């Protein structure tokens, strides 16, 4: 067999390949040659073959058949063999392969070898890919090497120790005594690695951290580090360690980082460091990148420890200087750190606001993102107008990936700091028109709620919105808000009264034209169409001369393909025909909505379990006609777990119940209320209402034994109520129901629903299951929370549905035997 080619030849050959396929061919040929050579157990050329294999591995081809060969190389006595063997082990092996344990013995022998280079190789490999078993076995050897006087070995041993600690944290104490002398070295390599080791120890274990902070011997750790740092800065030019005029910046950075960890939350250490930090901050040259790197680390350290205020101001000024620097990297780094510090040192950062806002116009994407986040953090009552102008301009010109975040940020900021309602509305309109399609869906309900709240601005708002969609109705959120407003305040629009702006002359037909074109347009989403149809319907009471036109439009959509639209249109038609006397009352103006606190996109959506508000509006005629029914129809509708955000525009007569329910994704049926109360006057309200609760604080105590009651016991189904009162909130009663089944067959699909009188509020959590096993062998538990602020007598009506013996059963019952302790 001819001698295998050298690595160089291989590389040269591969470089001549023109296509990927050619390269693969060459490599496969070579792999085959290597494999047959391995089979022949050829000692002389093994090293060469493995080297080639490693190269191919780097290019991305599988090379696992070389692992055993690596082991053989490690075991050989020649240094070149060992070197390639260890390199191969580091690259090809890791703890997932079983083969690696075979290396342990080799490494152990090599750690005690006479040549330091071999020892070094072994340490490197162990530090690179040692598994926890290997580390446990060999930790003792590593520790011994940590104490030798050979600095070449010491630094490698320190890094190996870092790896050992990462893999097996329990061994940390073993290395503790060795660390005492580590910092006394002159050799920077050793210093550097020992600082790394100390950093790792301090990060991993708070005990170690406390230990290092205390006075353990005559020289504490912090003063030692300070001394070393001082020497580095003060010493003159040292050719070994110099990088563009600064000696050993890498070591400086490491020491600063360790100081940061030591000084965090600890006053004494922080005090000891103050001077040196000030010194570093002032003396370091900033003309080169190196100096800036050190300053960056210093600033991070100052911010993290308990430094005095003068130092903090110094740090922020440094960051401000960074911001003005021409180099992009530095500006990026400055913006990142300012973002971290803006919470704590708000005022200081405000000083640099104008520079930050300028960074919004930078070309670089990373910088723009940082600047945007920082700008939002800096908006406050004083600067909101100016900042908003800049941010709106940014929204115009930024990349699409930013627009959603920017729009949400602007909404939040505007909500918190709007100087006047008109300004707020103007800002929102501006956002909707510029970035309309990127606005998040949940912004629409918030906006609508905001608009209803600013009563005096209705005319102005509707006029502006009308003008906005006149030209362009492709941006869905804008169109949704606009159609809702036009539906509500169309009469203001037509009457032409508007104090804030020049009133425009709009006729009813023009308004209907626009709404109809939204309905017809291909660009409108289904949701938008729903909004438009409802708006048209509402206008039937507000407009006087175009009612017939509206009737026509509504009846056309009665046969629309879109089920949602069809349902709405049919119901509205019914309103026109049969319930015309109810129409004005139903379609009255919305009351002012209670403020729904938002937490941004992760808010718990306060919905009523409905997908569209319109469906709710049509419910009242039904429940009005059947006052006895407990909104059971509504409950059926709640079966689906929709959490599409819904405008909380339930036609409620009491603003207090603006909350909806907490939809539990895990529960099958999470009942709560939808404020089903009829709108306005004419329909008498059903005596019991289901009201939703916004999340109540969890109580955590048990009241002294309130007797439990049996609420229902019929047909083999027994339901017990046990009570708990909260000490923190005396008007909350928590009822745990237990449902058991004494018949011979299981009850499946068991659903428990409850209703309470108007003065109470109820929250039903999800049940443990929906099957009650027979013969009382198991129960379903469910928790109900009742809020009883007026301490009235608790009464409850319950409805049970389940399947038993193959047939569906349903029952209604009233529970009146609540013990007085449960509600007093």
């Amino acid at each position, binding site marked *: 067999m001819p001698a295998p080619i050298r690595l160089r030849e291989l590389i040269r050959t591969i*470089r001549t390949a023109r296509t990927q396929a050619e390269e693969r061919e060459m490599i496969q040929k070579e792999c085959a040659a290597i494999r047959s050579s391995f089979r022949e157990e050829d000692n002389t050329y093994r090293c060469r073959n493995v080297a080639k294999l490693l190269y191919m*591995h780097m*290019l991305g081809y599988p090379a696992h058949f070389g692992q055993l060969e690596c082991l053989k190389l490690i075991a050989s006595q020649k240094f070149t063999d060992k070197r390639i063997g260890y*390199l191969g082990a580091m690259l090809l092996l890791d703890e997932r392969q079983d083969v690696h344990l075979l290396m342990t013995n080799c490494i152990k022998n090599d750690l005690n070898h006479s040549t330091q280079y071999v020892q070094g190789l072994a340490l*490197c490999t162990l530090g690179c890919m040692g598994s926890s078993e290997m580390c446990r076995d060999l930790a003792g050897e590593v520790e011994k090497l940590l104490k030798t006087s050979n600095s070449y070995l010491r630094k490698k041993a320190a890094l190996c120790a870092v790896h050992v600690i990462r893999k097996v944290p329990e061994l940390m104490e073993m290395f503790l005594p060795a660390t005492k002398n580590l910092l006394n070295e002159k050799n920077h390599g050793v210093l550097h690695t020992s600082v790394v080791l100390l950093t790792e120890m301090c990060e991993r274990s708070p005990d170690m951290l406390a230990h290092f902070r205390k006075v353990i011997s005559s020289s504490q750790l912090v003063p030692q580090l300070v001394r070393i740092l001082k020497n580095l800065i003060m010493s003159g030019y040292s050719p070994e360690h110099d990088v563009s005029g600064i000696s050993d910046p*890498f070591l400086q950075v490491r020491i600063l980082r360790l100081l940061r960890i030591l000084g965090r939350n600890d006053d004494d250490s922080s005090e000891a460091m103050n001077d040196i930090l000030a010194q570093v901050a002032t003396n370091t040259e900033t003309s080169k990148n190196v100096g800036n*790197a050190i300053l960056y680390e210093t600033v*991070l350290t100052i911010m993290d420890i308990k430094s005095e205020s003068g130092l903090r101001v110094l740090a922020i000024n440094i960051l401000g200087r960074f911001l003005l620097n021409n180099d992009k990297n530095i500006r990026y780094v400055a913006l990142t750190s300012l973002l971290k510090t803006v919470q704590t040192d708000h005022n200081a950062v405000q000083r640099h606001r104008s520079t930050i806002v300028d960074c919004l116009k930078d070309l670089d994407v990373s910088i723009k993102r940082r600047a945007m986040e920082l700008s939002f953090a800096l908006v406050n009552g004083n600067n909101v107008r100016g900042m908003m102008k800049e941010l709106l301009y940014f929204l115009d010109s930024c990349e699409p990936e930013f627009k959603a975040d920017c729009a949400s940020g602007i909404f939040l900021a505007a909500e918190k700091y709007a100087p006047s309602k008109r300004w707020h509305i103007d800002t929102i309109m501006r956002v909707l028109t510029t970035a309309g399609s990127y606005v998040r869906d949940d912004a629409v309900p918030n906006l609508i709620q905001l608009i209803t709240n600013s009563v005096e601005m209705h005319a102005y708002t509707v006029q502006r919105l009308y003008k906005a969609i006149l030209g362009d109705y492709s941006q869905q959120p804008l169109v949704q808000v606009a159609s809702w407003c036009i539906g509500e305040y169309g009469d203001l629009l037509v009457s032409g009264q508007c104090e804030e702006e020049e009133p425009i002359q709009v006729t009813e037909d023009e308004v209907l034209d626009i709404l109809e074109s939204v309905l017809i347009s291909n660009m409108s989403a289904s949701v938008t169409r729903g909004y438009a149809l409802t708006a048209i319907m509402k206008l039937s009471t507000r407009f006087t001369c175009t009612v017939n036109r509206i009737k026509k439009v509504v009846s056309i959509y009665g046969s629309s393909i879109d089920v949602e639209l069809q349902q709405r249109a049919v119901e509205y038609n019914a309103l026109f025909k049969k319930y015309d006397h109810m129409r004005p009352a139903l379609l009255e103006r919305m009351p002012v909505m209670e403020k729904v606190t938002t937490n941004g996109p992760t808010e718990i959506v306060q919905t009523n379990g409905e997908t569209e508000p319109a469906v709710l509006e049509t419910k009242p005629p039904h429940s009005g006609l059947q006052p006895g029914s407990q909104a059971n129809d509504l409950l059926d509708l709640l079966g689906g777990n929709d959490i599409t955000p819904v405008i909380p525009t339930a036609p409620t007569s009491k603003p207090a119940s603006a909350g909806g329910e907490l939809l539990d994704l895990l529960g099958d049926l999470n009942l709560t209320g939808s404020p089903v109360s009829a709108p306005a006057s004419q329909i008498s309200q059903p005596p019991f209402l289901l009201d939703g609760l916004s999340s109540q604080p969890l109580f955590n105590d048990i009241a002294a034994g309130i007797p439990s009651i049996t609420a229902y016991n019929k047909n083999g189904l027994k339901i017990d109520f046990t009570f708990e009162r909260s000490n923190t909130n005396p008007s909350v009663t928590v009822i745990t129901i237990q449902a058991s089944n004494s018949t011979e067959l299981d009850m499946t699909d068991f659903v428990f629903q409850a209703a309470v009188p108007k003065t109470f509020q109820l929250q039903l959590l999800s049940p443990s299951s929906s099957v009650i096993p027979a013969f009382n062998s198991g129960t379903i538990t469910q928790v109900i929370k009742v809020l009883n602020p007026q301490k009235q007598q608790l009464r409850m009506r319950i409805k049970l549905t389940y399947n038993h013996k193959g047939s569906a059963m349903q029952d209604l019952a009233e529970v009146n035997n609540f013990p007085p302790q449960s509600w007093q």
Partner: protein
Amino acid sequence: MIKFFLMVNKQGQTRLSKYYEHIEIHKRTMLEAEVIKNCLSRSKDQCSFIEYKDFKLVYRQYAALFVVVGINETENEMAVYELIHNFVEVLDKYFSRVSELDVSFLVSESHL
């Protein structure tokens, strides 16, 4: 913590790669291709730190070769930037005026 250290040329050929965390082989090639794509699309005026998935890339271009280091958020980006330069200077001294060819050919030396 440094996750990986790559030297890739403009055509996407990896000249040197060292991973400090285990990543499967086919994922490595994909990672390298994506990383180089990100770096190539940057202009000269943009900063050298890219946010990629859940870590940061620090890259530096030397003629036709990109040196890319992947770090997580505990590292000081500027210090790593300097480290890259230091590394290249060392290679320069070792090979006396290093070029891409040197890096490709003397893989074993570059590694250790």
